[in-house]
């Protein structure tokens, strides 16, 4: 990649730009450091969960890591621990850059990041100890979710203030997506918690409906808003071509939030028939924003003069393609003919894993690799890891999500035939889970490389700070005679 060209695309190495980057340094390190740790923890827990299928009695005497615990903790560590703080950090930087202004209230996100990661810690430990709420994607008990909610609001204050301080009043497409995401999370998270995790929850199956609405709006819509907002910022910057075009992006934004927010109610759920029906209609209409996003990405990327060699550009490109695929899988799973086979199989988890790991994690790690050296003011400590991680992730995602999806279809066909015994459907899926575990291992190794880069950078920066402090302490104090001498020289 042509380095000088990239710097130009990102607004040059002017004094202002470096001041903006420097203002984001501490908040971003606080957000990304914890996120990198949770990414590794989440993937290790995922691996522990999937081991149960290789050797069922592995954790028979260890309640903490039994499948139901490890699986939920892994999902939440990845989503709440990695995806959301990483997304918020990237969002803060993009807002500061687009505003051409330093981050407003930089101390607030630092405090909030620590509260957030504390909340995730409380939640994950509670799940492992069996204190989950029992609602998918909302497993954190009240103590954890209150911390998360407060931390999100604090970060949102800083983000909105930075947005308000912008020099150019015209909005860029990334603004729409990221602002909507800032608004989305507090609404859905407070709704889900107030309706489900209180002393007077709603009655009966309405709980399942609200949980499905929440899960879809978080895992599909929120991640899509932040991931696409990031991609629409980085794709033009990295390819050196303007976004094609703003009107199409506006169309994609509108249709995504209007149709996307109605998806998620499963086909055969024991609910009034209008609910799954409305969800199916919305899911099939989701094809509209997907096509628009595909056109934007293709037109922006095609004809770029730079080649993709496993750098951040590759990450964002791959992530956007994974999003399109994940959206298509969502549509397929809501289409009655197809869901007849895939419902209650590994196909659903495959789509979620593709969305979280294949789309969001990849886009975010690409963005972080691109912005972190600028923010820190020095190059990545292990630049070769970027390329290795890209290949590990790509291979891992294809193996992991791909084998889950194919295994899900096979499992569904066995499940649909009442003549085959049930155990056959688990056996056929088991074969694919074994292949998928290899993919998960690749992703885990890739995430270790990512964490190594982030932590090495943090340590390097802290050492530099320490050196500066020591130098300052060691420097001889100005004595009265020094001052008198200086006075003599002057006079």
């Amino acid at each position, binding site marked *: 990649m042509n380095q000088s060209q990239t710097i130009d695309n990102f607004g040059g190495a002017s004094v202002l730009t470096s001041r903006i980057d420097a203002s984001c340094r501490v908040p971003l390190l606080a957000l990304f450091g914890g996120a990198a740790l949770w990414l590794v923890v989440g993937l290790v827990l995922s691996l522990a969960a999937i081991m149960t299928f290789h050797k069922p009695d592995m954790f028979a005497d260890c309640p903490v890591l039994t499948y139901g615990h490890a699986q939920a903790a892994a999902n939440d560590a990845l989503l709440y621990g990695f995806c959301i703080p990483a997304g918020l950090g990237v969002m803060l930087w993009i807002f500061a850059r687009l505003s051409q202004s330093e981050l407003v209230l930089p101390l607030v996100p630092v405090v909030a990041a620590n509260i957030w990661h504390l909340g995730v810690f409380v939640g994950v430990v509670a799940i492992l100890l069996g204190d989950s709420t029992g609602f998918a994607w909302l497993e954190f008990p009240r103590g954890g979710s209150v911390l998360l909610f407060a931390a999100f609001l604090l970060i949102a204050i800083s983000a909105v203030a930075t947005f*308000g301080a912008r020099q150019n009043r015209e909005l860029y497409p990334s603004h729409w997506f990221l602002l909507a995401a800032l608004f989305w999370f507090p609404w859905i998270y407070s709704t889900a918690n107030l309706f489900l995790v209180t002393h007077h929850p709603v009655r009966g199956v309405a709980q399942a409906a609200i949980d499905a609405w929440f899960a879809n709006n978080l895992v599909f819509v929120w991640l899509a808003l932040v991931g696409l907002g990031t991609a629409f910022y980085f794709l033009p910057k990295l390819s050196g071509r303007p976004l094609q075009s703003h009107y199409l992006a506006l169309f994609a934004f509108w249709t995504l939030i209007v149709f996307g927010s109605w998806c998620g109610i499963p086909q055969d759920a024991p609910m009034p028939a209008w609910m799954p029906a409305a969800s199916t209609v919305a899911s099939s209409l989701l094809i509209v924003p997907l096509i628009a996003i595909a056109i934007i990405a293709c037109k922006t990327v095609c004809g770029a003069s730079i080649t993709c060699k496993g750098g951040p550009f590759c990450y964002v490109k791959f992530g956007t393609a994974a999003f399109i695929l994940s959206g298509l899988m969502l549509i397929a799973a809501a289409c009655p003919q197809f869901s007849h086979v895939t419902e209650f199989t590994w196909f659903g988890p495959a789509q979620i894993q593709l969305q979280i790991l294949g789309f969001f994690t990849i886009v975010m790690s690409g963005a972080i690799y691109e912005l972190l050296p600028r923010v820190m003011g020095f190059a990545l400590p292990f630049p070769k890891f970027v390329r290795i991680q890209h290949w590990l992730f790509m291979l891992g995602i294809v193996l992991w999500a791909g084998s889950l999806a194919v295994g899900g279809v096979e499992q569904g066909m066995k*499940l649909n035939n009442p003549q085959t015994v049930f155990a056959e459907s688990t056996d056929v899926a088991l074969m694919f889970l074994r292949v998928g575990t290899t993919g998960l291992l690749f992703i885990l190794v890739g995430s270790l490389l990512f964490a190594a880069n982030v932590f090495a950078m943090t340590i390097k920066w802290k050492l530099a700070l320490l050196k500066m402090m020591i130098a300052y302490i060691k420097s001889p104090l100005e004595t009265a005679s020094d001052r008198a001498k200086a006075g003599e020289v002057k006079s």
Partner: protein
Amino acid sequence: MKSGLCVFLAAFIALGLSWCGFVLGPAKQLGTARQAAVLNSSDTYPLQPTGDATLGLQVYRANGCAACHTEQVRQDGVTCEIVLTGAGKNPTAVTNLVSTLKLTGLTKEEADAASDKITAAGGSVETHINPVGRDIARGWGVRRSVAADFLYDYPVQLGSLRAGPDLANVGARLPDANWQLVHLYAPSAVAKNSAMPPFRFLFEVRKIGDAPSPDALQFPKDFPPPSGCEVVPTPEAKQLVAYLLSLKADVPLYEAPFTPVIAKP
């Protein structure tokens, strides 16, 4: 879009609409639901679960059982069946008529037409409704799951993956508490090729003392417990089994009708 306000309004309208649809709608429509009437009976359904079954749902939740088990039975449709209950004054004519008609696997319309013909000839008939579907053919339930089945559950554990069998009707399918306990302790002892992890941490293995525990598990012959020891369920295990045995979705309701099969004496 020129200003942040436009973005805010766009997001507000989009999310607000879906909030009204999938949060407010179900909260109003289902959140105030009451017990439903059982068809052809004066009973109401479901009964409020009590004691151990209520606590067992919390064990089910805490251990994330819903990660692998669903509690919803799917149904693809119903077929009707006509059963002759009386031949009337002209039995030969009715019998001849019945032998020319198709009596099973009918749609509602066909069943109505056939029963009209037989009634016109002087016979009396009953129309039986039989739900059909993949899950029902597996014996996982007698009808599809409906909202009423989950009226008293908190949290509702519908589940979304069948790494294990469906449990909507497990209390009626496998009503033996000892079988359930042994299955939790060592799934392969009672279910061959089971992929379920054993939940040994819900049990206590101890030396048989002077007074063997009355709660100790009765193992099948080919799976003896450790010699000189007995396996005693913890209160959690007993509660979990009480909850599993309370899962019975086996009464006909207005929205999920069927004709119960009455076992012949």
